[in-house]
């Protein structure tokens, strides 16, 4: 979902309307093929711009909404150490949202428009954040699995063709490693704890495993218009490729934790050199994406509430700036 918009109606690619247009498109594709990054003011096909705006706004929204399940546990962190870590991690996610909003604005959209689309449900965000964080172990599982999946995605995105997006991804990837490591460390602590703590750990992983795999989006066969994104290098690896990468990296980490992953079909395939895994429940995925997940309404409502309650601050700051400006002129 971070790098995949294939659950939405494809953006139509118009045929070139003139020779000049066809020539521009050719030059553009040549740049992409030569791995020359595209920068804001340069000519680009309309559909390239639209696809990026959609994907980047969806990505930024995911970072921002992603603060909510973790924010929920701040006041219940078991130690000051865990609390400052969680706080720093959540603040990073807010920062990630801002990096990407800022990059998306270079394509001519506005922050206000993107926020509006989030709040009216027109824009999507990653399905994973519509699941609740029910136990303290979830704070570890989210860092390990959810940030882990996000890293797999974002490393690929950092090699994408649009300059500002790619630079934002490089910045983000540098910070994500802390997110995953703090989560895994939290889980390691639980794995060495009491029986109840071990149980809490296993139960949390059981809930988050499948939704984490869904984060990569539909199977390649069901994501036909990804091909254009690949051609434009907005997307560098397919959904299934990234999912496989994530699974291969994660299974040994689960073994080290001494837990099981809730998939009886999960096993090493010597021939493929990869882990095989079971069927993902795409019906659940569709439901969550289309607004019927356990927390969809709550997440958007919380965003709206914070936004509305902050309106007076924005007004006051605007009025203050105006007053200062007048003083300067006088």
């Amino acid at each position, binding site marked *: 979902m971070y790098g995949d918009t294939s659950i939405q109606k494809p953006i139509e690619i118009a045929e070139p309307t003139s020779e000049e247009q066809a020539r521009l498109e050719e030059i553009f594709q040549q740049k992409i093929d030569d791995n020359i990054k595209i920068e804001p003011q340069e*000519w680009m096909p309309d559909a390239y711009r639209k696809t990026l705006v959609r994907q980047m706004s969806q990505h930024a929204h995911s970072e921002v909404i992603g603060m909510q399940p973790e924010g929920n546990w701040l006041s219940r962190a078991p130690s000051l150490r865990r609390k400052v870590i969680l706080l720093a991690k959540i603040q990073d996610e807010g920062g990630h949202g*801002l990096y990407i909003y800022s990059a998306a604005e270079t394509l001519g959209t506005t922050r*206000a428009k993107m926020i509006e689309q989030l709040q009216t449900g027109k824009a999507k965000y990653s399905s994973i954040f519509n699941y609740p964080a029910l136990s303290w172990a979830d704070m570890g599982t989210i860092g390990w699995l959810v940030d882990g999946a996000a890293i797999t995605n974002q490393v690929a995105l950092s090699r994408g063709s649009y300059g500002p997006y790619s630079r934002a991804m490089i910045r983000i990837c540098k910070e994500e490693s802390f997110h995953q490591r703090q989560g895994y460390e939290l889980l390691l602590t639980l794995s060495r704890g009491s029986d109840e703590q071990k149980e809490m750990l296993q139960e949390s992983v059981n809930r988050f495993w499948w939704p984490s795999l869904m984060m990569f989006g539909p199977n390649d066969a069901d994501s036909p218009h990804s091909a254009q994104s690949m051609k434009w290098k907005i997307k560098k690896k397919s959904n299934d490729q990234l999912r496989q990468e994530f699974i291969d990296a994660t299974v040994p980490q689960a073994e080290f934790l001494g837990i099981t992953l809730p998939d009886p079909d999960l096993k090493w395939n010597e021939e493929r050199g990869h882990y095989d895994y079971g069927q993902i429940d795409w019906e659940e995925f569709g439901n969550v994406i289309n607004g019927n997940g356990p927390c969809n309404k709550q997440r958007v409502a919380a965003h709206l509430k914070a936004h509305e309650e902050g309106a007076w601050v924005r007004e006051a700051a*605007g009025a203050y700036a105006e007053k200062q400006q007048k003083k300067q002129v006088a």
Partner: protein
Amino acid sequence: MTEQAKEQEWPLWEVFIRSKAGLDHKHCGSVHASDSEMAMEAARDVYTRRSEGISIWVVPSNAITASKPEDKESLFEPADDKIYRHPTFYDIPKGAGKM
């Protein structure tokens, strides 16, 4: 559009950061803020959470004049054939010593 979207957006500021003494300020992104003071605080929070900088510039985005991509040839190509501006253009015999 809803009320919130109509609400006027704060101006955009470009953020430049000097990562350590001796290096140039480098562009790293933008923030929205009502004035320069708020832009500075936002830039600090957004772009320097891990000692990425020791100095910040914030500049109103609309104060920047940028060259246009379509002017690339007229601006930069004239330099391409002036190879005599590079030290490697000149043959200096080894005997002359390091130069």
